[in-house]
């Protein structure tokens, strides 16, 4: 049997995944991180993107909008800001969110804009759409 470790993915609103996995690929702030069992302790910020993990049944994925990842040799914890399961992703909603963020960036008085918040919203929406396209291809649409 392949070596495994425990993965927990939680957001402030719910617990998304808790179980045994063989591998995790997380969207780290500096680039994707592949984590195998017995990885040395690591702590990293996450950007918005796809979090993939490999269980006995094969690969599965979740969307996270950013957060913090902690790796201990046998336990990996993802503290996501918000997140959702891949099947709950909605392209229309993501496009709508992206459009709103873009409008907000262009339209308003630049002084009362919260650039950081809008930028991160925009990135989250983009990442969702990218992820949907990737999954769509894999499913053969």
């Amino acid at each position: 049997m392949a070596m495994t470790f425990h993965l927990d993915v939680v957001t402030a609103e719910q617990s998304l995944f808790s179980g045994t996995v063989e591998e995790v690929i997380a969207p780290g702030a500096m680039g994707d991180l592949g984590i195998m069992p017995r990885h040395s302790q690591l702590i990293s910020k996450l950007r918005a993107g796809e979090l993939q993990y490999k269980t006995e049944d094969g690969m599965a994925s979740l969307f996270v909008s950013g957060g913090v990842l902690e790796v201990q040799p046998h336990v990996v914890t993802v503290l996501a800001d918000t997140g959702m399961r891949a099947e709950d992703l909605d392209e229309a909603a993501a496009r709508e969110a992206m459009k709103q963020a873009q409008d907000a960036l262009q339209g308003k008085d630049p002084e009362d804009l919260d650039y950081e918040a809008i930028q991160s919203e925009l990135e989250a929406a983009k990442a969702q759409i990218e992820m949907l396209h990737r999954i769509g291809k894999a499913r053969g649409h």
Partner: protein
Amino acid sequence: MAGGKEILSQIKSISNTKKITKAMEMVAASKMRRAQDRMKASRPYADKMRQVIGHLAAGHLEYNHPYTQERETVKRVGYIIMSSDRGLCGGLNVNLFKQALRSIADWKKEGVEVDICVFGAKAAAAFRRYGIVAQKTHMGDAPKVADMIGTIKVMLDAYEEGRIDRLFLVENEFVNSMTQKPQVTQLIPVVASSVDSIKHHWDYLYEPESKEVIDALMQRYIESLIYQGAVENVACEMAARMVAMKSASDNAGTMIDDLKLIYNKARQAAITQEISEIVAGASAV
């Protein structure tokens, strides 16, 4: 007859009150259920967060966040007090305030100044004289982190700039729907529940830099604790209101029964008197 009409109108007004308390009880019960769900949903995050912070405290890190460093002298402390916006929830807020005041009095005895930050209109009214530095009221039944951040930041900044040396959170713990326990917990410096004893020296790999990651993590940790406190406080408020309104309805019920008895007795006495008057009148003819 001791004012049959007056008694009747009293019964009427009490039964109206009873209708209101009954309705409030049912509303509170359904809101409590929703608040409990929210509380349960956010608990895994808070638990995991605590675990990660425990790991942090157990390791030997290259960067020590100010929130993890104990300061030697304590000159001024901060309190964050969670209360409800509305009353009619029994002794919930009063018990909490008593607990907070006791804790504050202990510090004052040692000559330590206290800064207070409040959530909820009830605490804002109760602690007005004690010097509130930040407050936020009317967050509704589903508090959002975004609404609370500004107020929390005032206290965190005060800590980072050295104006306060410790920060406490005063909130109600939801034990079950009948019991809520006021408690004071220390937020900063972070009291580490170091689970495993330190056997070897290890440090994390950081991505990006250690300071950036730990800062982000600490901020989320404090936010999650306070958010959890706010959500739990709503559940407590609803539970306490449900119980208070239930006993109010019960009291109204017994009062109505008593008044009905008095009314009926008075009515019967009046009838008896009338009959005896008629009989006496008839026999006199």
